[in-house]
């Protein structure tokens, strides 16, 4: 018997993001990815991610045509959708999955997290390898843009940890 416990300060269980060229690197990468896949088959870690990816796909399908909002919105781009999938898979644990997935009229996708009435954080993905973010943390406001490469940008993770702590 096991009990699911919320993980609030995980180092993360994500795929290998570094680059290597040796045979040893490939072997280690395969082993590590098997461990990650086994974790994702678990009820605690795998199910919330699977459900979040399903919701994301539904939003993508609903908003993949012109004028999905009745106000001449652009269709959600495949680039934005796959960037969101990539981000979901890179998040260290289900605790960090967003509360809301929202299509934007410019073809981007917005992910939002809430904690109470005055603490919220949102990012926008457009398929251009960048994350536009903004947040309100009580009296403090932040906004900016960061490069989205092989891992979740440090600034985004710090803000999420700050919000969810």
């Amino acid at each position: 018997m096991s009990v699911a416990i919320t993980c609030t300060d995980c180092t993360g269980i994500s795929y290998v993001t570094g680059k290597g060229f040796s045979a040893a690197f490939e072997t280690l990468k395969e082993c590590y990815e098997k461990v990650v896949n086994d974790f994702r088959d678990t009820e605690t870690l795998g199910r919330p991610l699977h459900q979040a990816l399903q919701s994301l796909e539904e939003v993508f399908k609903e908003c993949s045509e012109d004028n999905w909002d009745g106000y001449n919105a652009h269709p959600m781009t495949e680039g934005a959708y796959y960037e969101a999938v990539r981000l979901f898979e890179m998040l260290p644990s289900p605790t960090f999955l967003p509360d809301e997935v929202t299509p934007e009229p410019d073809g981007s996708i917005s992910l939002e997290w809430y904690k109470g009435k005055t603490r919220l954080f949102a990012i926008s993905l457009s398929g251009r390898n960048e994350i536009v973010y903004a947040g309100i943390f009580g009296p403090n406001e932040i906004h900016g843009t960061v490069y989205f490469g092989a891992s979740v940008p440090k600034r985004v993770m710090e803000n999420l940890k700050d919000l969810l702590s």
Partner: protein
Amino acid sequence: MPHKGETSVFRVSGISDIEIWHIGEKYVVSSQNKPLFGRADITASIIMDNGLDVIPQEPPVKHANIIGWPEDKSKQMEMAMQLALKAQFHKKD
């Protein structure tokens, strides 16, 4: 969030709750063919206090646009959050 620099709104000051929902059904639901879940009410003064403006854009009657959004999208997001925090949400029964 704005689209092409504008956010579409309806001016509802001085009209009844029933009339407000009717606007939603007539001009929003019909164009999107989707159910109406709720609405967010906010006063024009709050919008203007945040450095934005509201200009009438009819038809349809009472339609307006929020304009004056900054070019930078992250700043737009921050302003939209501020407005959302100050808006009053009404869930559709």
